[in-house]
């Protein structure tokens, strides 16, 4: 029974995918959207069932469906594991997924390929579920690659636009770099423990006789995988570009769910990372650096979705910081709250874009507060949440990260705090530029300004509510999440006592956030500053605006050399190699041509050679001996 239910949970979105891909064009758009949404809802409901059951008996559900890949020293099942971690993830993936599906019915209503959109979304959910519920690393890898694929398909959804396709391709390839790391990590683990099953790895690790260097290498490789998927330094550059996709996609995949896969994986393998402190340091540093760099780039972006994208990168950086410090629960906590408010923000921005018929440049917005009140308020709540204002969800989770950082390393704490202040600043900059002051777009756009339909606003409201109360799941004191995840996490992360230090830190964080808000307020409301046109930006601002030229740097360092190498190979080396082979033929032919002169038809010459031949043979045989 449970197996069947688990299968339904897994396959329901897949059925939606199949329906939409094969029959979607034949049914009306609403039907295809409804089917797409319903199948995800089914998964969501089933997740709740399993969650409830787990809460009752506390026993994870694990089953091996069938043998999959077999190598000499171990066999891999296609297995399902539903434990605390995976159910938690399932819940918010399918939950937010359902909301975003719902949202998309309206958002994508005018697109001719709407059924495909839903097909891809469903497929994405399917792969995400696979990723989450797999009982071994390889099944996770299927999902891992699968979501990458869906991300590719959805970023390039408007495939007629080649830059979008470029962005999609970039996302896929950047992810693949990480995937290679993941694969190598798996290989090392498989070589060490002859298994990829989480439980078995855990048992094997607890035996504690593994080579620590190899373990470290494995952990590092897995982390490289995570940096790809979760857009960390140095592989983060695909995520901002991925905003080329439709906004619901950005909300679902590039904010709430897929990008958190890296965190999921690290949390899943916490028992491994706990044994490799060096790698944890690296993770923490990478996380903090990412948070800072992305936040700083976010300060000057003008595309509304780009701002959110960098914000996502930055927040993910914070989560990795927490992971690196061993505070898995904190990271998970932030993942969940972040999913709520970031999804809400993206959907809100989608609503804005929808209202402006595709305009994404904040310089051409402004004053939308009145025209789109629901959008404004829901986004405002989420902005407060992300900025870390008490008592919104983000405050609790971010605060925990800062606290953990403070405990471990003051430098990291400072970095994270600066990132938080920046976050507050650029988020409010976004809000001010979008919703306050006067509208800066064209008259025509102004004429058409309107609030989005209810299918769009309902998910916004639900998410906004969650962004307010989401922090409740792990309030200091109750620490429900901590307890819930205890069976999963090997090293217990002790709950914070709410002492003076903690309150002081909370205060500092809050003050920091407010400072950021005031700063933004001063600049954009009081100063009425509107960002300059691209051409006018100069100096350091220009560097930041151009994302520190990281893309250009990668292009220069990797893409260009590979391409010119390819050109060199194609135009020079290949023909040269070909010529080497041909040269034997040419040589033989050349000798043949020369030889023709020898066979000149002159009998005298023939006889001459004949006699010389005789002399040579006789000399060799009878004189030289």
């Amino acid at each position: 029974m449970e197996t069947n239910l688990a299968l339904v949970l897994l396959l329901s979105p897949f059925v939606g995918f199949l329906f939409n891909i094969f029959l979607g064009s034949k049914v009306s758009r609403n039907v295809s959207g409804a089917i797409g949404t319903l199948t995800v809802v089914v998964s969501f409901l089933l997740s709740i069932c399993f969650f409830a059951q787990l809460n009752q008996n506390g026993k994870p559900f694990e089953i091996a469906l069938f043998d999959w890949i077999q190598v000499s020293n171990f066999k891999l099942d296609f297995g399902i594991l539903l434990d605390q971690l995976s159910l938690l993830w399932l819940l918010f993936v399918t939950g937010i997924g359902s909301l975003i599906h719902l949202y998309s019915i309206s958002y994508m209503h005018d697109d001719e390929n709407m059924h495909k959109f839903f097909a891809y979304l469903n497929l994405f959910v399917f792969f995400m579920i696979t990723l989450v519920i797999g009982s071994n690393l390889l099944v996770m890898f299927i999902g891992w690659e699968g979501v990458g694929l869906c991300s590719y398909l959805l970023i390039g959804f408007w495939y007629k636009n080649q830059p979008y396709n470029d962005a999609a391709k970039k996302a896929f390839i950047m992810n693949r770099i990480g995937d290679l790391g993941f694969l190598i990590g798996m290989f090392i683990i498989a070589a060490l423990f002859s298994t990829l099953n989480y439980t078995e790895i855990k048992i094997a690790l607890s035996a504690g006789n593994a080579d620590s260097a190899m373990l470290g290498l494995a952990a590092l490789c897995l982390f490289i995988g995570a940096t790809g998927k979760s857009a960390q330094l140095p592989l983060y550059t695909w995520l901002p570009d991925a905003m080329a996709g439709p906004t619901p996609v950005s909300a679902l995949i590039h904010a709430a769910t897929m990008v958190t896969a890296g965190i999921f994986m690290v949390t899943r393998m916490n028992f491994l990372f706990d044994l490799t402190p060096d790698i944890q340091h690296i993770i923490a540093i990478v996380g903090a650096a990412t948070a800072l760099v992305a936040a700083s780039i976010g300060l000057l972006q003008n595309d509304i979705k780009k701002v959110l994208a960098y914000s996502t990168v930055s927040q993910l950086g914070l989560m990795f910081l927490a992971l690196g410090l061993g505070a898995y629960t904190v990271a998970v906590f932030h993942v969940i709250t972040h999913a709520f408010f970031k999804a809400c923000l993206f959907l809100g921005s989608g609503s804005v874009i929808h209202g402006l018929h595709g305009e994404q440049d904040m310089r051409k917005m402004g004053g939308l507060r009145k025209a789109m009140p629901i959008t404004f308020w829901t986004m405002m709540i989420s902005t407060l949440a992300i900025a870390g204002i008490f008592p919104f969800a983000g405050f609790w989770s971010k605060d925990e990260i800062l606290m953990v950082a403070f405990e471990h390393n003051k430098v990291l704490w400072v970095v994270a705090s600066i990132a938080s202040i920046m976050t507050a600043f650029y988020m409010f900059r976004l809000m001010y530029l979008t919703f306050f002051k006067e509208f800066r777009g064209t008259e025509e756009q102004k004429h058409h300004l309107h609030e989005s339909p209810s299918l769009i606003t309902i998910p916004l409201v639900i998410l906004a509510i969650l962004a307010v109360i989401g922090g409740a799941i792990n309030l200091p004191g109750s620490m429900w999440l901590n307890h819930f995840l205890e069976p999963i996490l090997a090293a217990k992360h002790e709950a914070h006592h709410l002492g003076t230090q903690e309150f002081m830190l909370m205060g500092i964080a809050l003050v920091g956030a407010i400072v950021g808000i005031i700063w933004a307020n001063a600049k954009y409301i009081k100063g009425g500053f509107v960002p300059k046109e691209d051409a006018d930006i100069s100096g350091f601002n220009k560097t930041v605006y151009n994302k520190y030229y990281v893309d250009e740097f990668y292009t220069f360092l990797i893409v260009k050399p590979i391409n010119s190498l390819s050109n060199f190979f194609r135009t020079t080396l290949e023909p040269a190699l070909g010529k080497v082979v041909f040269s034997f033929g040419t040589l033989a032919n050349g000798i043949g041509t020369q030889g023709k002169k020898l066979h000149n038809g002159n009998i005298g010459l023939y006889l001459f050679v004949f006699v010389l031949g005789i002399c040579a043979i006789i000399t060799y045989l009878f004189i030289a001996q």
Partner: protein
Amino acid sequence: MSPILITFYFLAAITLATAFLTIYSKNPIHSAIYLVLCFFSIAGHYLLFNAQFLAIVHIIVYSGAIMVLFLFTIMLMNLNKENEVHKPRITRLGAIVVFILMSIVLVTIFINSKTIMGEYDTSGEDFQSIKTLGKILLNEYMVPFEFASILLLAAMIGVVLLSKKEKTEKK
């Protein structure tokens, strides 16, 4: 220096000289005549070996038949003039070099070879009279003897084939 040896040297000198002159003289007629002389000197050698029958046959066949054929052809082609252009100098030089080389090589190997000094076998039997030769030729060598006729037949047909005009030919 026995008379026989002197005879040998004399004949050998004639043989080589006439052979050389055959090649050297520009007029084909002279060549032919020198060749006849050469053949006669070779017949002289045969006689020296007491192979009378062979010597006679040799003269008949070579001087009588083959040389006549040569002369006939020369006349037919009206070649009795010294109009032959010499081969290019380099070719002639090459020919001379090869000639010398080959002579040296061959002579050297035969000098190196273990020559039989002293007594030669003398069986005392008759081995070169017409009678003996005839017996051998028509007993043991019956098959080759007959086969030689095939050879001559083939040559004959061949010559006919080469010379016979056909009705279809234009000439």
